[in-house]
């Protein structure tokens, strides 16, 4: 979905998100958070692109929108990914619509660091769910695919595919960025936990306000790590260093 937005969105950082709500309508009631998929300007206007999968009342309502409809949108919100211009190898690990902020990040790396090699691991339920594949392929030197049903690429989890290749990457050269369902992030955490890779993940939580007031989106971070305790995904996140997040069942992972 492409939304015309105010000029302030031009400064959006990959990993930041927007809160979107149907105008003057209480169904769905709360705004929905979406990572920014891309930002572009045309004829002096700024446009924000978001990617969504119909999963509930909110996204179903969005799917019924028509061109020209007006929505309420707040943003850009939260803390995005750290971009390191000196970095020579970028590894993206995406699950489903988690590709959206990573695609925006790849775009930024392409623009800022033309020489960086970008490798993407993209997993989805089936080949039809590999939305955004064409765009990410244009920006990456390699895109490796997995599907749960085996309809395209490796049959299984994207983290399994990444695990096989891990020996190819060195922690002092590569940076890993990931976004996807909670079990995938937890799996990635388990793979990386005893290795010194630098990895940032973008988390998704239910939230009401997106600006740090409702405290609905908190997750636990490891105490003992600087800034440990409860953090708000909307404000301190949605992007966190993977080692900071407590991947436990009690924390929703």
């Amino acid at each position: 979905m492409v939304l015309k937005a105010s000029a302030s969105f031009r400064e959006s950082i990959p990993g930041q998100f927007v809160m979107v709500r149907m105008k003057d309508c209480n169904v769905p009631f709360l705004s929905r958070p979406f990572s920014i998929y891309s930002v572009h300007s045309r004829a002096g206007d700024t446009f924000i692109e978001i990617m969504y999968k119909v999963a509930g009342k909110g996204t179903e309502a969005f799917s019924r929108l028509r061109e020209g409809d007006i929505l309420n949108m707040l943003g850009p919100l939260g803390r995005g990914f750290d971009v390191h211009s000196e970095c020579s190898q970028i590894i993206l690990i995406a699950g489903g619509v988690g590709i959206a902020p990573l695609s925006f990040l790849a775009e930024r790396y392409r623009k800022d660091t033309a020489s960086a090699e970008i490798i993407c691991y993209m997993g989805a339920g089936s080949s039809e769910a590999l939305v955004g594949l064409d765009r990410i392929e244009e920006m990456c030197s390699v895109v490796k695919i997995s599907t749960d049903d085996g309809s395209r690429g490796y049959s299984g989890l994207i983290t399994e595919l990444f695990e096989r290749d891990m020996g190819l990457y060195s922690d002092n050269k590569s940076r890993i960025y990931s976004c996807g369902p909670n079990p995938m992030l937890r799996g990635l955490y388990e793979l990386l936990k005893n290795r010194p890779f630098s990895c940032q993940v973008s988390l998704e939580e239910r939230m009401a306000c997106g600006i740090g007031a409702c405290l609905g989106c908190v997750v636990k971070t490891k105490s003992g790590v600087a800034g440990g305790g409860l953090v708000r995904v909307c404000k301190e996140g949605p992007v966190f260093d993977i080692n900071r997040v407590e991947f436990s069942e009690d924390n929703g992972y």
Partner: protein
Amino acid sequence: MKLKMGVNIGGLALKNPVMTASGTFGYGEEYSDYLDLNRLGAVIVKGLSLEPREGNSPPRIIETASGMLNAVGLQNVGVRAFINDKLPWLRRTDSSIVTNIFGETIEDYVKVAEILNDAEGVAAIEVNISCPNVKRGGIAFGSDPVLAAEVTRAVKDVSRLPVIVKLTPNVTDITEIARAAEAAGADALSLINTITGMSVDIEKRVPHLKNVTGGLSGPAIKPVALRMVWEVVKEVSIPVIGIGGIMNARDVLEFLIVGAKAVQVGTANFLNPGVTADIIDDMERYLSEKGINDINDLIGTLKI
């Protein structure tokens, strides 16, 4: 002729009757990019306890029909950190600052109220009595008229500030609690707090909230809130502040007409962080159109 929007709530003079409900407005600063806080009648901050609280485990919120359930569990920085870290920033606004307080024992409430006596810039205390009293088997202070009176009197005895008692709707007869709080010295009442509810994930057969139950807010509860405000206004002589599902100026006007002297906007802040400024603008427009010069002339004018 200049429109008069000011109201007086038991010694607390407000520039207009629109406040932000505790727990929906952080410590004010969260909203400063989206709203000129000086527009507000009062900012009511997130409920404060004696010691910091982590609150409940996630998930803490779930959307419901025209509303939401929350079980945040009163996460807050504690009264001392509020005074040291949050209040200095907030004091720069010229809106009144109201601190919402809660505790698990009467002694907790008293200590928090005493600490706030020395805090510069706090205009009033709102006492959340919806919490369980751990010394009395967990029964909520606000669901028993004797306990409600006890905590009200204890806070009144030590506080130098106007004391607003915030009532829970999770009772058989809210007027009984209202009368008890008034008799114990409350300067004003605010109602309603959230209505206890729950929601279930039918695929996993688990509650949507980790805490199982949560507090329902949003437009779904407005008719209940309005009815309770109307009932309480008839039974007490102290000012009543209406809370519950206010989304726009029309909702505020309903509360004022049934007799609330002021209102608190809660969940609507989450959907539009600038909503309170829109509400105040629209109220002023309504009053001008109706030829009402003083908002107090509208309060309690319900015809039955």
